[in-house]
Structure formats: C-alpha cells, structure tokens
C-alpha cells in the first residue's frame, strides 16, 4: 500500500470489505468526530470483529458464573488463573483455530497451539500441559484424512518442539463438520501467586517494548477472516493464515518467563489475533492509560510495509511489554541472551488515546477504550423447527439388532469411539516428567513437583446432543467434564469454554447459542465451578449450513494428594464391578443410533444436576480412601462400550486385557440398555474386601448402585446378550484409526 492509498477515500465498499456495517461505521465517525482514515478503519475492523470484540455473544457470556474462592483471575485477561494451594496457581484457557485449520491444516493447527501457549506464559505461568479437541467430517473422506493428518502433525510439531506435553484430547468424526473442521487448543500453566502479571500498561513515560519475531505480511485480518463464513472465496484469503515457528516461541517463552520472574515488567501481552493493534489498545485500556507507538521502530520482515499492514499483521511469536522504570536495559540484555529481537517502540501516556506514528508523523489517533468496547448486539432468536421433530422421533421404529455382540464390535471400532493412539503417539505426552496418567483414560493427571498436589484435566465437547437439545446438551457437556475429573479422583475447580457455532446473525443459530450458554451456566452454578475464561468461534458454516452447535469445555481438577488418582482400566481378576447410577433404555441421540442405524435424532438424554453432583462427590470420597481400582464413565456407546474400554488394561492391544462377566439388568429395549447414553453413570471396580466400605459411602451420598459382576476371563460377557473375546475388542479398538489412515 502506497501513501496514495493511505489517503484513500473511505467508501461504502471499503467499509463493507472491512466487515463493518453502516451503523458501525457511523459509530466510528461519532467517536472520532470525523471520518477515520484507512489505518484507523483497519483498527476498528479487527477489534470490533466477533473474534476480538464478542459483539454478538458478549451479552450472553456475561451471564456465566465466573466467581469463586479460588479464582485469582477471571475472564478478560489472556488466561484465567486459579489458586491450587501452597502458594501455587494454575493458569488455563481454551481457544479455537477453526478457520485457519480448515484452509491450511498444518499451519492453522500449529499456530493455534502457539497462540494458546502465549496466552499462558504471558500471565507468568510456565506451560506444563496441552490438550486439544478436534472435529472433522467422516474419516472415510480422503479430504478429511488430509485435514486430520495435517492438524495432528501441526499440533505435534509445535507442542513437541516447545517441550510441552500434550496429555489429553478428543477427536470426533461427524458429517456436520465436513467442510468446517473444529480445532480447539487448550493449555495449562503453573505459577506461584507472586508471579502473576497482567496485560496492563501503566506508569506514564514507561517504555513500550516489542519482542520476538519480526513483523511480516502474514495473517493480516486473520481475526476478521475468522468472523466470516468459509466460502470458496475464503480459500483466496490464504495470506490470512499465519506461519508457525515453535523454536522462536520456545526462545520467546524462556525469555518472557525470565523477564517476568525477574520482576522487570509492569505488564505484558502477546500479539495474537489483531496483532499489534490488539495488544496496544488492550494494554492501554486495561491500565486506564494511553499508548503512543511509532511503527517505523517495529522490526520488520520485509520492506515497504505500511502502518496499516504493520498494525494488522498476525505474524506469530511476538509480544508487547511495558518495562518498569530503570529496567529497560535489563530487558534488552535478557533478549540479547536469547538472540531475540527487541525494540522500544513507544511510551505509556496519560491521554487515554492510542496514537500511532510513522517516523514521527501521526497515522492513527483514536481513544484506546473505543477499540476494546465493540458494539454489543442482542440478535434475534427463533427456535428451529427441527428441534420439535427430533423430540417426536419414534424409537420403536428402530429394530433391535439380533446380534448385539456385532454391534459392540462395530461401535468399538467407530473412529469417534476407537482409541486415539494414532494421534497421541505423535504427541510427546511425557516431556517435563510430570505425566502420571497418560492419554487414554478419562482424565490426564500431572503432578506438581515438590508438592503432593496434582492436576487432573480433560477437554470435552458435545455437538450431537446440543443439536437435539441445546440446553440439556450443554448441561451434559459440563457434567461429563466434571465426571471425568471425578473418575480420576480429583475435584473440579474451574472451567474454560470454547463455543463453536454458526453465524449468530441467523436467528436459529442464535437460539442454540442462547440455550447452550444457559445450560453451561446452570450446570456450573449447580456444581460450584467457575468459568475463568474462554473463546467464541462463530460463523462456522459451510455451503450446506451451520455446524452442530458445539460447546467445548476444558475442566481443571485438583488433587490434594496425587497418590489418590484412579484410572479407567480394570486391575485384577476377581475384583467386583459396580454400576453407579441407573441403567437406561432410550437410544435417542446415541452414537449407537448414528453408527448402526444411520440416524442423528431422538430425545437427547436428560441430566439431573443434583444426582450428578452426588455422583461426583461419592467418587471423590471413594478415591480419597483409595477404595477404587478403576472408574470410567459411560458416554459414547453407553454401558457396553464403557465396560469394554475398562477391559483394555494396557496402552496397546499387544498388552494383556482383562475380561469381565456382568449381568444386564433393567427393563426395556436391550440395545438401549447396552448402548443408550443415559447420564450420571460410572463403572467402577474394587477389591472384594472393600465392598462394605464402598457400599456405605455410596449409600451415604444417596447414589444408586448395583454390583453387576466381576473382572476376569478372556471375554467380555454382558448377560446373555453379548460375548466377545477381549483380545478381539482390543484389536478393533486400538487399530481402527491406524488401519483407516494406513
């Protein structure tokens, strides 16, 4: 862009190309008391995009519970932080990188990991674990194989090179995500309370310093791009996808932590979405200050970049920081040690304005607050007619298969249910030598060295249920996350969420968003779990319509003593097997109904929050007294699949699995009892000697339970209905995805 374009007349067309509506443009003119120039228009365009400004979702997000005794930092910062005791705290957050990954899977996913890691170490925390939630179309589609391969490779390369273990995740394959994959990345960091730092600019005259990679023309308008629907045209926007350099980020992380722990900074923020623009105005806004920068001082990758491009570039691995008075030289020394670029590009002012100069000449001058306060909309909503149809679905029209052993075999090999070993084997999940429960169990567990403390973590999403009943589906996704934590023996202390939806400007999509947020909020309030931050990803549409409404939640659990952890696998022959909760019979919304009968419909399972909470409390009490050998919740595939998954004692099909003989109680259709997805159910195993104590505790909490059988033998037998050799089940489970990807 030449200076002649800098002086370009702002036309309606240009406003529209910046994703701004006429009334939004008018609001900008009112704020400035004049027309914006093109650079200023660019600033408002990115900051008022849905990705940065949450303009359609903010009003709803404000209803979520965010307070709690342990919350040290709630939403509004780069990541939430919670107290875990003994002076330690945990920082965590989940974020989407859906649109870039759909266009360029390797770089899109890799920079997604890079972005969430920066959010964590920007707070002063050392990242200790990564998780991710991935959704694609059916794995039989060659295009999906390419996306799946690229995304996993991108995540692996970034996390592995950074030396952060990727300890847990989920992968779902469903037609709803065919043209619009979901890539949600979560990161977890540890820090001491006194190491917390925020993205704030304060102290008039303090130096504003840019560190990290140079600024290039990649990723310009990435945030605006992420706030539109993917179309054929958007594949033309490839330059809006950034390029990853994990080695640079590793250096940046070490240098940043050295700066923060050396107490040299007033504030720091990473440059993610909307790059230098976002970091500058947000730091000024949070600090109640102003910032003045000169873009000519920004280290640049190429010549001839305009202020517009420099401000909107989303080049990766960059940070903006404000040094304490007298510390500027020390900051530069530490960056030199790590061979990183550092440039003092401006100062903190008291004007409340974000002033951008180029070689001393003002090119943008706007109130910093006005960028961070995007318009807030209350879009129209209307209940989609399809929801009523789903509820009217007649289950009796679905025949009960005669060979239910075959159904189990088919389900256990379904790529959504089957082992994700093909994925997590590519992730270094052990580096930092803290991983006590590796990928594959209900929740991953890491230790906090030097203490007895441990962290359990899981990431879960539920598009299929939310498409049938967004309110119940949202309650269930929270319950499932907390249940996974409870099965591992820990207490859920906090949650982060990523809301993946279609266009909020469509009333039917907004209805889902509204109901899902209501469900998330009610479940979190019932369980006493605050939400400390997250992200929304809207406009996930493809030519055939919106994706299933997909809330993804990251749940954080705490162990006072990590020795009480529990895994999902049976341990010894002769141990008793209990079902906690009640056997159901409905097949509505189940994976079984989809995989076996090709139907995605029916009544979504319902969840009683009080019953669920008691279940979690009883599991924690049982684990605390070390009374459980294993605990595994019933989710996709229901009771029978949960039992089968409990039989796979090793991490591979070559290792020995344990069989089980159990009864099938309850009434109603057999396939519903075996594969239906009724909620609040967990399969546990215990030493016979502990049965009396276990019974007592379960009765005390009022949790319904039933002794259903014992561990042992070479087969999984469920009543008269199912009998399959566990070796065969294990082989199907562990090699299904590998065979499809070969």
């Amino acid at each position: 862009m030449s200076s002649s374009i800098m002086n370009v007349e702002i036309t309606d067309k240009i406003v529209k190309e910046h994703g701004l509506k006429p009334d939004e443009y008018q609001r900008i003119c009112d704020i400035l008391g004049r027309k914006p120039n093109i650079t200023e228009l660019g600033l408002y365009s990115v900051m008022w995009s849905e990705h940065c400004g949450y303009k359609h979702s903010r009003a709803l997000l404000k209803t979520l519970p965010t307070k709690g005794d342990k919350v040290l930092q709630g939403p509004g910062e780069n990541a939430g932080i919670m107290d875990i005791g003994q002076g330690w705290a945990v920082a965590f957050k989940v974020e989407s990188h859906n649109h870039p990954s759909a266009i360029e899977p390797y770089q899109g996913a890799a920079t997604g990991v890079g972005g969430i890691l920066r959010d964590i170490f920007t707070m002063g925390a050392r990242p200790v674990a990564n998780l991710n939630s991935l959704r694609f179309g059916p794995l039989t589609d060659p295009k999906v194989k390419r996306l799946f391969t690229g995304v996993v490779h991108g995540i692996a390369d970034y996390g592995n090179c950074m030396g952060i273990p990727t300890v847990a995740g989920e992968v779902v394959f469903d037609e709803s995500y065919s043209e619009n994959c979901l890539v949600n990345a979560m990161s977890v960091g540890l820090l001491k309370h006194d190491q917390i730092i925020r993205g704030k600019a304060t102290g008039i005259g303090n130096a504003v310093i840019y560190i990290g990679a140079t600024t290039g023309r990649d990723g310009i308008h990435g945030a605006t791009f992420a706030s539109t629907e993917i179309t054929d045209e958007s594949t033309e926007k490839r330059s809006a996808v950034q390029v990853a350099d994990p080695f640079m980020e590793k250096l940046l992380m070490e240098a940043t932590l050295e700066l923060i722990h050396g107490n040299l900074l007033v504030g720091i923020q990473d440059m993610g979405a909307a790059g230098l623009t976002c970091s500058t105005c947000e730091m000024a806004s949070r600090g109640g200050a102003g910032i003045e920068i000169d873009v000519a001082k920004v280290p640049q990758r190429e010549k001839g970049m305009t202020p517009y491009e420099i401000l909107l570039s989303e080049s990766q691995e960059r940070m903006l920081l404000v040094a304490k008075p007298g510390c500027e030289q020390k900051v530069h020394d530490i960056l030199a040690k790590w061979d990183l670029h550092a440039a003092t590009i401006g100062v903190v002012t008291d004007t409340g304005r974000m002033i951008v100069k180029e070689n001393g000449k003002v090119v943008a001058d706007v109130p910093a607050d006005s960028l961070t306060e995007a318009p807030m909309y209350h879009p129209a909503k209307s209940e989609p007619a399809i929801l009523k149809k789903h509820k009217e679905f007649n289950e009796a029209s679905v025949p009960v298969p005669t060979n239910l052993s075959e159904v189990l075999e088919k389900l256990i090999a379904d790529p959504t249910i089957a082992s994700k070993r093909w994925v997590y084997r590519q992730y270094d999940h052990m580096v930092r030598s803290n991983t006590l429960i590796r990928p594959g169990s209900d929740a991953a567990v890491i230790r906090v060295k030097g203490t007895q403390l441990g962290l359990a973590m899981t990431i879960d999403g539920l598009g299929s249920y939310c498409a049938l009943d967004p309110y119940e589906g949202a309650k269930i996704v929270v319950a499932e996350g907390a249940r996974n934590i409870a099965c591992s023996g820990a207490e859920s202390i906090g949650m982060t969420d990523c809301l993946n939806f279609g266009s909020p400007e469509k009333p039917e999509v907004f209805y889902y968003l509204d109901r899902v947020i209501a469900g998330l909020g009610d479940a979190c309030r019932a369980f006493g779990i605050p939400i400390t931050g997250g992200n929304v990803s809207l406009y996930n549409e493809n030519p055939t319509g919106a994706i299933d409404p997909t809330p993804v939640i990251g749940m954080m659990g705490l162990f006072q003593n990590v020795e009480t952890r529990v895994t999902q696998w049976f341990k010894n022959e002769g141990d008793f097997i209990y079902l906690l909760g009640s056997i159901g019979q409905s097949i509505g919304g189940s994976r079984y109904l989809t995989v076996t009968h090709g139907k995605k419909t029916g009544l979504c399972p319902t969840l009683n929050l009080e019953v669920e909470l008691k279940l979690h409390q009883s599991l924690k009490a049982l684990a605390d007294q070390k009374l459980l050998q294993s605990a595994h919740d019933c989710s996709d595939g229901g009771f029978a699949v949960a039992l089968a998954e409990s039989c796979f004692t090793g991490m591979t099909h070559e290792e020995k699995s344990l069989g089980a003989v159990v009864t099938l109680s309850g009434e109603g259709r057999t396939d519903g009892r075996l594969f239906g997805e009724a909620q609040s159910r967990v399969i546990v195993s215990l030493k016979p000697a502990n049965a009396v104590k276990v019974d007592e505790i379960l009765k005390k909490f009022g949790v319904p339970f039933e002794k259903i059988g014992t561990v042992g033998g070479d087969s999984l037998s469920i009543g008269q209905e199912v009998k399959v050799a566990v070796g065969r089940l294990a082989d199907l489970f562990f090699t299904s995805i590998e065979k499809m990807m070969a």
Partner: protein
Amino acid sequence: MRFSVTVFPGSNCDHDCEYVLRDVEKQNVEMIWHKDTDLKNPDCIIVPGGFSYGDYLRTGAIARFSPVMKSVADFAAKGGLVIGVCNGFQILCEAGLLPGALIRNKTLKFICQSVYIRVEQTNTPFTNACKPGQVLKIPIAHGEGNYFIDADGLKKLKDNNQIVVRYCDVNGQLTPESNPNGSLESIAGVCNVSRNVFGLMPHPDRSGEAILGSHDGHYIWQSILSAKVGAR
C-alpha cells in the same frame, strides 16, 4: 557426584535431567548455557533431549557448533563421562563423538510411547549396574531415532562391543514389531571405543521414578554413580 547439563536454545529435557539427578538421585547438578565454555568441573556431562535450534537443517547439526561443545569434546577426550539422551544422542553423533547417525523414523512420524530395551553391554560406566540381557522399560519420544551406520561402521561397533542397548519386546526378544523406529539391528544406544561416551534415544530421565510408570532409568543413573565410585 557432580553432573553438568548442557542447555542449548531449544533444549527441553534439561529440566527433566536436572530433576531426576538433583531431586531423585540427590546429586549436584549445574546447568551450562551453550555459549559458555566452563563446564563447572563435572564428573559427568549430560547432553539432554529437546529440539536444539528447532531441529533446523538437521537434528543436532547446529548445536554441535555451539561453544560448549568444544569443551564437551575436550572433556570426553580426557576420558570424562558424557551421556547424550535423544537429541543429545543426535548431537553427539553430529559432533563425531559417537559413530553413526539418527535418521527419520520408518513411520515418518514422531513416536512417543514406552518401549523395552535389552542391555547388550554391561561393561560400560552407563550400564554396569545392569545384568547382561536385562530388559528395561523406558519411554521414547522422537521423530528421528532410526539409527543408521554403514557396513564397516557396524562391523567396528560389533568388534568393539559398542552396541550397548537394543529395542526388544517385554521378554527381551528382538522382533520387527518391537523396533519402533526401524533402527539398524534394533540399535537403541551405542558408546564410543573408549566407552566413556554413550548416547541413546530412550529417556532414562523420564523413567527414574515408579510414579512415572517405570523406575528402570534408575539403572542407568546408578551405573554412572557406581562407575565414579569405582574410579576413586
């Protein structure tokens, strides 16, 4: 005993080595920045795993030119104990302190999992606490761990008993399935002719405590500790 752990830009198992030696094995540990040449008078040097220089160009290829590597080579030439783990093994091969090279895994993918290795040589300062043929359960995590050496080199390795550990199954058998990365003759780790420099792809730094799923890495550390005691 005094250990020094080298730290390159991109090293990421340096903390794990520090932890297992200082907090678990209760030894003295110094961290040596790659731009430094003073090794702080160690009894043994650890070249840790990670992605030194982002694996740019070729694994270990740039790290070998770091100033600290000259000191490591001098230390080794005088008979000092040097152990390279994972990327450290790759660096030692690139630096010519160990024979052979580590190329892309046969699967062309990064592999992270527990594996079994068989101790082929107990007559080294790094394996003297093991029994001949002992099977150790130790994790791997690498994309380039496929050991390769030419026919002459392999003959020399065998003639000099330099193949220290091999990938095997749980019973100690060498099978194609138990060779995760396609290494020549299932080689997981080798030493130099003088037997004071040792490199291996599996991570004893991640398997030194039962809580991590295996305590077998302790045999490697215990060997080094008793080697030093023996030297005194």
